[in-house]
């Protein structure tokens, strides 16, 4: 199995390299078949070859590379690329139909899961903890205290500020949809200011925004920049990231991490929301929580195609009402063996 996997990974590397070579010979800027970084593409190809080596997907990806290779002008370069294509195709076709074992473990997920692999951080990877939480469950305090105990960086709104800097945008023009930092401000707004019509942009301002966000919506531009930033940071330091689809971003980019979801029964959350926001009555608190849950669920589903708060998506789901904030921190520390 291990040998097979190594061989298949090598084959996947050859496929990726062939695509890169063809693209390089063509000098085109119109895109290529595997348009992401080598490691991820090779990983995905390996998975595809491991599970369905005769499947149509790998074959049609290969066919697309061949389409491009046939258009290489230099005859010798074209011949070499096509010879390599034929060799790879034969190898793909000669693979057995399946290498899957009967274990329920998903090797791809297990590789990313620090609970599973003791020597995970021995390889030099940084400790990254992604915490998703419902408003009023104390998740933010849990994250902060956990970072303090582990002596690692804690990121919440800081990420958003860094994104604003990258986008050269003003804070007032963007809303931090991925966190709860806007809640306090919203609650402090008086009714008359909420009823004011939104500022209408002039054509020039609209064009400036269009250019600033590369034609994307503000929310998408912020999300893509957040993703970039998180991936960059994951190469450099240990940290805890609060929300922002951090768990999905890490999974998609093959970055080992621990994903935790913290919530509590609605009564406790209402109670806590009223405690931290002076003057908020229980009726408004319940409405606020319902709206925030809906918004977060929608945001998470939009960018990850997963269900927010669904146990399948996390390594650990905790009811903070059972342990309290400090108890939850201790519980997590014990789980990760620190």
């Amino acid at each position, binding site marked *: 199995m291990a040998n097979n996997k190594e061989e298949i990974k090598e084959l996947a590397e050859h496929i990726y390299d062939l695509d890169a070579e063809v693209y390089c010979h063509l000098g*085109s800027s*119109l895109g290529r078949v595997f348009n992401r970084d080598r490691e991820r593409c090779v990983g995905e190809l390996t998975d595809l070859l491991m599970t369905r080596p005769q499947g149509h997907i790998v074959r049609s990806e290969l066919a697309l590379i061949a389409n491009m290779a046939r258009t290489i002008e230099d005859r010798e370069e074209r011949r070499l690329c096509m010879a390599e294509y034929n060799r790879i195709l034969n190898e793909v076709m000669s693979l057995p139909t399946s290498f899957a074992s009967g274990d329920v473990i998903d090797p791809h997920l297990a590789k990313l899961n620090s609970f599973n692999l003791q020597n995970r951080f021995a390889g030099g990877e940084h400790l990254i903890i992604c915490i998703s939480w419902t408003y009023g469950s104390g998740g933010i305090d849990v994250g902060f205290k956990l970072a303090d105990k582990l002596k690692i960086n804690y990121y919440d709104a800081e990420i958003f500020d860094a994104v604003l800097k990258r986008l*050269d945008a003003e804070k007032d023009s963007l809303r931090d949809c991925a966190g709860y930092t806007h809640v306090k401000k919203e609650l402090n707004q008086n009714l008359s200011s909420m009823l004011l019509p939104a500022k209408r942009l002039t054509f020039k301002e609209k064009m400036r925004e269009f250019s600033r966000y*590369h*034609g994307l919506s503000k929310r*998408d531009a912020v999300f*893509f920049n957040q993703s*970039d930033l998180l991936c960059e940071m994951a190469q450099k330091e240990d940290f805890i990231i609060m929300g922002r689809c951090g768990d999905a971003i890490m999974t*998609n980019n093959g970055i080992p991490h621990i994903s935790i979801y913290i919530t509590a029964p609605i009564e406790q959350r209402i109670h806590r929301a009223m405690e931290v926001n002076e003057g908020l009555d229980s009726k408004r608190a319940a409405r606020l929580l319902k709206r925030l849950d809906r918004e977060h669920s929608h945001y998470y589903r939009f960018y990850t195609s997963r269900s927010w708060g669904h146990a399948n998506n996390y390594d650990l789901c905790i009811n903070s009402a059972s342990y309290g904030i400090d108890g939850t921190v201790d519980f997590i520390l014990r789980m990760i063996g620190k």
Partner: protein
Amino acid sequence: MEKLMTVLESQGVFGLFNPAAWTAGGHIGAASVWLCLPFAGLLLCIAVLPLVKAEWWEAHQPHAVVFWSLLFLFPFAALKGVGTAAETVLECIVNDYLTFIVLLFGLFCVSGNITMSGDLAGSPRINVGLLALGTLLSSLIGTTGASMLMIRPIIKMNSWRHKKRHIIVFFIFMVSNMGGCLTPIGDPPLLMGFMRGVPFLWSLHLLPLLIFNLIVLLFVFYWIDMRAYRTDIARGLKPDIKKPGTEIEIRGSHNLIYIAMIVAAVILSGALPGLSAFQNEEGGLRGIRIFGEVVLSFSSLIEIGIILLAAWLSFRTTDGAIRRENHFTWSAIKEVAVLFVGIFITMQPALMLLKANGASLGLTEPYQLFWVTGMLSSFLDNTPTYLVFLTTAGALGFTEGMVTALGVVPVKLLTAISAGAVFMGANTYIGNAPNFMVKSIADENGIRMPSFFGYLVWSFGILVPVFLLDTLVFFL
């Protein structure tokens, strides 16, 4: 629905596909129906062989074209005589295929010399904007011109994405076909109408129809593209937008002059034959006699000359690095040139049958003409199809409507014929010249395009319901 089916079942729509209807009033006879088989055979090859024997098909396309062409030519020559057969083939090659392929070649060359670089990210709203822009551009520079000009920037902006074939499919629907309905420059059938006395700006009557279709299709597209976009994001794909601000640079923009030259050549080809200087004593076109009655007219020669000059100038004045960046190769135009010569030759019997029987089909209602012109334009050349039904409508003896050289045609009938010919070219890859070209360019640049049948699923799943809506809103 029941009413609609009754309407469709009425003699005009389905009768056309019945061989008995062809032969009953036709001049060609039952045997000629079977001469259409090579055309069907060639279409079947185009549809099936890339799926089952892709490499063989790629290497043997010319052989297949020769095979099916000869399979039509030999029986046809035996039936009608060698002279008539030679004349038929030369007529279609000299007067239809030559101008068709030269126009495509010219626009392919010139647009390949314009490149857009920048970091605008392909997203649903950008794509909707580009499709809408391309659709409107089609009426100004023709469906082929707009397709060739816009396809590469669209591919480039969406290069970060994985699920993107639907973008090209909708591009074919809107930019390569529907957009051409507003002016005679947009699509050749309308140019033919212009040459037969339909005023230049009359096609603007189709604007409400185009806007209706545009809204429906863009709405559907946005929904599909948003789903695909979200799937891509969920897979971790993201555009490179690290730098604040978008920089867009267009290089080779001087080639827009050559596109204007080509558009002018197309307009001239429509306008010149009406001038007495280009007509002989009998009212026919002056030109070089090739064989029998086949004449390469001077107006066509001027069109071809201007287009080839534009292509040559474009190559002479543009840096080769731009073509390299655009992944400019000859494969796409070569494939189209080879396949379409076969399509043009083998579809002759079908066109003859249409010309012989079109008038006797009893088509008098707008919905009938919309669907029949459209469905035939999906597989045959839409220009002769348009002309046949325009002639049919002109001969119906109406006294009110648009006065053309072919008779008075009620505006509703003319609208139906024009819309059918232009819109339904999008139903298949071979329905309109740019369709196959766009597919080939996308295929070459890492986009897995649907097969011939796969594309039919898209067009029947999306376009046919839109056309049914058109029928209900505009033609009933």
